[in-house]
């Protein structure tokens, strides 16, 4: 125990001696999460749209009016033909197009179905899906209006043959569907890679500088050495978690419905798992450069692409979902959103916690084993 403590003390002293590094993994991590949350929580609104109204009738104008009065759409470009609209979308000026065909009003007058083309830019799938969803909803509403007016004219307004169905929708955990509430807790998984990577760099630096050999000459055991090196970074990571919560509550008004103790506990497990990855990497390589490049890739790209942070897990094929569940970050994103927004605790999050614990123990164990093998 004493030897672990002395290694820890040494590591802390190292950190303090390089204030740049300490600042980076605390203040830097906070600034990073502030910047990312601020950027990514912007709503997709006022989407610039190119319009081709080939009908130019009162009907088509009435239909388009429903888009104009909707905040989601900005009917910015009124094009003469679909080629012009195509070019607008191709160059990225417009993110979608609405094409009302000639004969729109006549078709409706005949009591038939008029088809309007909604064009989306396939290179921005998230925007495309929202444009589509909103356009369909507006068109459906417009159709209902038409129907009601029709029935009115026919004197059937309060006739029993009108049927309506209404979904009364309510979003739980985040009633106004504010993006920041889901983004900020999720991004913690990414920001916590900073203290983790520093740990890998620190171990690699000692190897590079040869100071590791001198440590090995002391009666400290290998596992004690690794534990002593890891704990300071784990503590800095937990400090980061507290700072993130503070920033989230104060600057962004993100709700925190769970218990802080749960968040600390699960964050500790996540850091343990990530530090396992880091340490294992630094026992495999000889230089800081290699440690950073590998840890940088491994701790960043899966978080961005596979953790459920930006792409929901259910939308992945089953194999990929299984693979995504092997990364600690995937579980941590569930955990942070659960604790912040749903207010759930150990009862619901236990499986995720156990996975992180097992992952951390196995990887740290492997790191100790590699470390022994290499030095003996």
């Amino acid at each position, binding site marked *: 125990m004493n030897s672990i403590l002395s290694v820890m003390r040494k590591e802390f002293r190292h950190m303090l001696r390089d204030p740049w590094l300490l600042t980076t993994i605390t203040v830097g991590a906070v600034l990073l999460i502030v910047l990312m949350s601020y950027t990514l929580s912007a709503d997709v609104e006022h989407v610039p749209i190119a319009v081709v109204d080939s009908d130019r009738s009162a009907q088509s104008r009435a239909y388009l009016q429903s888009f104009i009065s909707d905040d989601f759409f900005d009917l910015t470009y009124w094009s003469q033909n679909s080629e012009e609209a195509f070019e607008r979308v191709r160059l990225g000026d417009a993110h979608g197009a609405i094409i009302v065909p000639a004969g729109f009003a006549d078709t409706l007058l005949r009591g038939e179905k008029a088809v309007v083309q909604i064009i989306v830019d396939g290179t921005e799938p998230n925007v495309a899906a929202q444009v589509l969803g909103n356009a369909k909803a507006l068109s459906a509403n417009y159709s209902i209006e*038409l129907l009601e007016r029709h029935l009115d004219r026919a004197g059937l307004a309060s006739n029993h043959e009108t*049927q309506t*169905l209404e979904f009364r929708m309510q979003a739980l955990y985040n009633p106004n569907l504010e993006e920041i509430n889901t983004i900020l807790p999720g991004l913690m998984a990414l920001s916590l890679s900073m203290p983790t990577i520093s740990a890998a760099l620190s171990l690699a630096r000692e190897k590079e500088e040869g100071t590791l050999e001198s440590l090995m000459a002391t009666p400290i055991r290998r596992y004690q050495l690794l534990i002593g090196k890891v704990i300071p970074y784990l503590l800095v990571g937990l400090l980061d978690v507290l700072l993130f919560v503070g920033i989230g509550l104060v600057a962004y008004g993100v709700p925190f419905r769970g218990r802080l103790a749960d968040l600390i506990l699960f964050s500790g497990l996540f850091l343990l798992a990530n530090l396992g990855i880091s340490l294992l990497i630094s026992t495999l390589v000889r230089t800081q*450069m290699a440690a950073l490049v590998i840890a940088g890739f491994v701790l960043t790209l899966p978080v961005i692409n596979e953790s459920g942070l930006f792409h929901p897990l259910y939308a992945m094929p089953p194999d*990929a979902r299984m693979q995504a569940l092997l990364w600690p970050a995937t579980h941590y994103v569930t955990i942070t959103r659960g604790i912040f927004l749903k207010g759930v605790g150990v009862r619901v999050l236990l499986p995720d916690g156990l996975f992180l614990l097992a992952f951390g123990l196995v990887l740290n164990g492997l790191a100790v084993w590699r470390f022994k093998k290499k030095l003996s």
Partner: protein
Amino acid sequence: MFSRIGNMLWKEGIQFLRYRLLLIFVLGFPIFNLVSAAGAIGEGIMHIPTAVCDQDLSADSRRLVHMLRNSRYFDPDYHVGSQAELEQLLEKGEVKVGLVIPQDFGAELTAEDKGATAQVLLDGTETTTALLAQAYLEETAYEYVQRQGAAGGVTVAGGLERVDARPRAWFNEDLGEKTLDLPDELADSLLLLAIFVPALLITREREAGTLEHLFVTPMRPIEMIVGKGLLAFVVAYLGFLGMLALLVFHFQIPFQGSLPLLMGLTAYYILVEMGWGLLISTVARTQGQSLMGAYILGVVEIILSGRVLPVAYMPWITQAMSLVMPNRHYTAILRGIMLKDYALSDLWPQLVSLAVLGIVLYTVAAFRLQKRLD
């Protein structure tokens, strides 16, 4: 001058080859990442896990559930007896949407002067899913009434006029996520390659104290940067070629524009991006600083690149910040050429931005290097 640069390149190349594991990783991980990303691509936001609490159990309510399933937007796989159970499923994250059909649903639907109401609970922790589910449900409600009317023989004189919004995606017709996600992954990996590798080359030398040795030789800082940079460039470009080959030959991503144009502009982009790596390495005092600096820049560039959220929807401050991120311009180039058949003339804003950025970055880096050595 060229022979000196050549010698430098040779020395660096030999040194780099000694880090075999790193080399394998640098060229291998992007490939691994692409392959695993290709496996992770689904159909987009479809088949949202949904739970239904059907208290009516009528033909009408069953028809509604059936319609949800047929739309392919919802997978109503969970059937529960009470709203409490439904809330539990939402809490655990098993489902994202819960539908409660009340007992008198069928009766109200056909009753005079009344409409039926069903309650929907959405998981607000995934806002994109919730927003889309709302829009899809509104459409479903309308279609349901339409079909119900047709089935019940409700015909109004003159038929039922309505407007149908027929979707069509341009530039990525089936909204194929593979077509888009894989080039995006390529841009992520290339970015990390282009800043990590040069960031190390100089700091390593300085820490080992061999930088001074190099400067007592008749080498000028510019030659030194060129020599180091060339090696980093070659490594990053090899990484790019590997990934590109995989995209084009193995995954057969439809390629609209000109392949040589993309290959040329990628080289141009890597050079500019490396300017950041060099600048960081001249500002940092230790390798650790330089490496963490490169890492932070990498994360910020990915976030501001416009791949996660299109730049146009970001707050203006970060939109402005993204202008100095070469990767933002490269994203536009890559997507433009691959998917929208951009020619060189469509890309001049990106080319000019990159040129200005490159000149500034390299000038400052050379200046810093000179100053540190004096």
